[in-house]
């Protein structure tokens, strides 16, 4: 054991480098879950390639007693299982860190570092000796490094065993083998190294009332609780697991035990154009419907999105953003569809956006999205991203208020419809820019014709200039109404009065909060607002007005959130300064701190 190792109790990052398709994912989850159950906050980031088997893949577990949810930018413990990436993995370990590798095969002498601790464990050799079949040998190697980590990090073996037992509850005979492999690693570590390391876990009570979940599952659950019945989609990373989740939850909650009949319908569409068409069709009928997709899907849906905007049909879209432009890096994260979603489609169109920052908000904003889409009769986009959607987050347990009832907006039906003298689809009866709609199949009186071509306020076809403009202007009034209905921003004020602030969005949140703490520690105080919806409402305006200099932190190249703020609030351009991160990995606090410190040093802004 090297004395250089820093002591990082409950505050470190483990990175595990493996090959995809070798079963390491469940091993990594095991490590994380064990720490979580020990009461210590964790978050897991999966850095995987865009292929199915045989390429390098990494999993990063951040252990943080303070509960930071972003990456830290440090690698304190590296488990380098992939010979192909060994050199790079070695180089990445922070000074004072630890690297664990499979010493079955000797490593090249050049591949060493004196500023870290390198621990070799003959994982393959031990497993090959112990296990017969080839498949088991591969899988058990993973369990063996879990065991070694358990020893080195002082993980609670009872917790670990409990997890194994739960995991293999239906295949009991696997419990023994897995525990055996874990013990192989555990024992080897204990025999050869001084365990535990100073970088280690100590039980706390900071995860009570929390769960571990990814954003896509949480959003799917939101769809179920919102009462969505129709889901249409075309598979695309990183949104696929959202529909997988909706299917799983619906099968759990929405299938008649006796008849097997289902209270939902999921259509795997032929492409994204069809998926959004299905959502529009189902919403028009009065069902709650949604589609999960990612950037390329939104591009393909653009024509239909304009149709829904103009024909005023509710639609809920989840854009789990990945790295663009084009196919880009499908397994990396970014926030670069903001402009596209805000103005998708030709002609004068603008759309409601919601920006969750974590799985908890994925759940809440999914529910809100359906209410807003129904209320505003327009497409509503939930802009999540790969980091939120596919990574493993620790969040407070989701709560549900059983008195909640969906806001279905202005639907005239049954008696209410009967009592109306005559029904006109696009009339602004209430002065809020939102007309009434009816549902097909209800009274004959409610029948109307939906079209994306010119129509007047009565719903009739028109090519008349004034009639056309009247409807288009009403849509602007509806846009103003939207501002009053959308979720407020989240504001965090610093202890000291300041005219400097950060505005950010979505998954930047963790990095921003950590950056603020670190900056405060250095005497730099900033206020913070995270916008949660577009169009921006009064609170956003007020926050902007109250600050002289604002850093806009976002994960794209072209400062897309800043562009929206400039265009759609009273913000003075020169007051908004961008901090951009668009490399595809979930951001950490460092680029924010560095940027702001640099500016402060230059005397530019406090």
């Amino acid at each position, binding site marked *: 054991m090297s004395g250089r190792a820093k002591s990082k109790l409950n505050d470190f990052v483990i990175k595990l480098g493996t090959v995809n398709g070798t079963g390491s994912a469940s091993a990594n989850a095991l490590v994380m879950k064990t720490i*979580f*159950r020990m009461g210590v906050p964790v978050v897991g980031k999966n850095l995987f390639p865009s292929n199915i088997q045989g390429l390098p893949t990494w999993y990063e577990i951040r252990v943080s007693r303070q509960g930071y949810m972003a990456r830290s930018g440090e690698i304190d413990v590296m488990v380098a299982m992939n010979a192909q990436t060994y050199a790079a993995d070695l180089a990445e370990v922070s000074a004072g860190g630890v690297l664990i590798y499979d010493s079955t095969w000797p490593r090249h002498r050049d591949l060493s570092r004196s500023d870290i601790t390198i621990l070799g464990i003959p994982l393959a050799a031990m497993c090959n000796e112990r296990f017969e079949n080839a498949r088991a040998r591969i899988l058990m190697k993973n369990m063996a490094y879990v065991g070694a980590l358990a020893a080195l990090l002082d993980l609670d073996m009872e917790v670990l065993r409990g997890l194994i037992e739960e995991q293999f509850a239906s295949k009991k005979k696997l419990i023994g083998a897995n525990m055996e492999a874990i013990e192989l690693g555990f024992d080897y570590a204990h025999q050869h190294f001084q365990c535990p390391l100073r970088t280690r876990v100590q039980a706390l009570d900071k995860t009570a009332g*929390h*769960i*571990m979940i990814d954003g896509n599952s949480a959003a799917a*659950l939101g769809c*179920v*609780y919102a*009462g969505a*019945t*129709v889901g*249409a989609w075309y598979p695309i990373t990183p949104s696929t697991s959202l529909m997988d989740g909706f299917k799983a*939850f619906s099968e759990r*909650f*929405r299938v*008649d035990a006796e008849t*097997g*009949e*289902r209270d*939902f*319908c*999921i*259509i795997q*569409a*032929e*492409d994204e*154009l*069809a998926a*959004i*068409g*299905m*959502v*529009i*069709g*189902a919403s*028009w*009928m*009065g*069902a709650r419907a949604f589609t999960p997709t990612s950037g390329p899907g939104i591009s393909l849906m653009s*024509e*239909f999105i304009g*149709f829904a905007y103009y024909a005023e049909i509710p639609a809920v879209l989840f854009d789990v953003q990945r790295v663009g432009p084009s196919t880009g890096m499908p397994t990396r994260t970014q926030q670069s569809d903001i402009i596209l979603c805000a103005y998708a489609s030709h002609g004068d169109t603008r759309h409601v956006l919601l920006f969750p920052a974590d799985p908890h908000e994925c759940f809440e904003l999914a529910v809100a999205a359906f209410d807003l889409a129904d209320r505003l009769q327009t497409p509503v986009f939930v802009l999540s991203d790969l980091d939120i959607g596919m990574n493993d987050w620790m969040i407070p347990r989701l*709560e549900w208020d*059983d008195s*909640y009832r*969906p806001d279905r907006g202005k639907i005239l039906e049954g008696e209410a419809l009967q009592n109306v003298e005559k029904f006109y689809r696009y009339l602004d009866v209430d002065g809020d820019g939102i007309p009434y709609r*009816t549902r*097909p*199949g*209800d*009274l*004959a009186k*409610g*029948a*109307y*014709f*939906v*079209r*994306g*071509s010119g129509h007047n306020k009565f719903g009739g076809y028109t090519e008349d200039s004034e009639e056309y403009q009247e409807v288009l202007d009403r849509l602007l009034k509806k846009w103003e109404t939207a501002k009053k209905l959308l979720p407020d921003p989240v504001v965090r004020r610093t202890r000291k009065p300041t005219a400097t602030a950060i505005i950010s969005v979505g998954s930047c949140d963790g990095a921003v909060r950590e950056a603020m703490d670190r900056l405060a520690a250095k005497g730099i105080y900033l206020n913070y607002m995270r916008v949660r919806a577009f169009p921006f409402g009064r609170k956003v305006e007020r926050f902007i007005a109250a600050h002289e200099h604002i850093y806009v932190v976002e994960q794209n190249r072209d400062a897309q959130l800043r562009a929206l703020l400039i265009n759609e609030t009273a913000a003075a351009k020169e007051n908004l300064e961008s901090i951009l991160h668009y490399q595809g990995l979930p951001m950490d606090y460092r680029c924010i701190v560095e940027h702001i410190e640099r500016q402060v040093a230059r005397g530019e802004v406090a």
Partner: protein
Amino acid sequence: MSFMPKPKIDHRGLKRNELGLSLHDYEGVASTLCAGCGHDSITAAIVQAFFELNMPPHKVVKMSGIGCSSKTTAYFLAGAHGINAVHGRMPSVASGANAANRDLTFVGVSGDGDSLSIGLGQFAHAIRRNLDMLYIVENNGVYGLTKGQFSASADVGSKAKKGETNLNPPIDPVKTGIAMGASFVARGFSGDKSQLVPLIKAGVRHRGFALLDVLSPCVTFNDHEASTKSYAHTRQYFHPAVHADFIPPSEEIRASYDEGEAMPVELHDGSIIVLRKTDPDYDPTDRARAFSYLMEHQNCGQVVTGLLYFSGESGDMHARNKSTATPLADLDYEQLCPGSHALAELQKGMR
């Protein structure tokens, strides 16, 4: 919810159906198509068919895309909800709408441009899903609304108004339907209402995707000799394979057909369509044969019309999904929301 709309002011002498509705009640706004357009004749056949089916208009949903043909949904069943989707994408909207409300009757009207060019993918996949709808392709071999370019169904050698000749082989909706596994494939001709009305009625009653290709000459851009979609051609080479007469369950007049000539087929709702074979060796339940039959007649320049293929075996989208009988759009929220307790239970597995 009143299922039977009140009859409008009595027009003296108008025939009324079982709902007390007259043909007028199945009409829509005035057509803005060219005088003599085949599409208007199809509209008239649809009006007639729904009248005869005693269908309450507000229980019908009219679906279309963009094109002269797609405009026609406004020209029938004013009392039905309708949607003009974007160009070529009506099948997806129909899929979603049908997913949400399986109780309504869906009738789609599209053009050959709308369904075979920009919309080919959606068309084929709606077939594959066996979506429960009647899907009419008003087929004229051209894009009428954009002024006469060839569509994908234009015949080889047919000439455009501007003198150009098409050399690409046509995509035939009927052959496509058969290749994609459609459960009901028929063809009619806009000028032959006597054949068209029963085909529409049969298509409406079929549970699953009923594809009805209707040759519908575009008088403005494609009514010339070289096209099989012209009146002249279609009349000359008219080759009906099977006549379908639709008998609603309430009538049961099967006996009035000559047994030797007729082939009754039972539809899902228990109603019967009786196929009158004009071509004695034709069997509309043999998919492989349907294709070669079409090809053989095509090779002698003949367009086969009638009910060309029919199968009652494969369930529609909802049957495959095991959807509950109540339209999804009508389910109570209370039934859909698992509630706070279930949420707490579920989350136990997330620790």
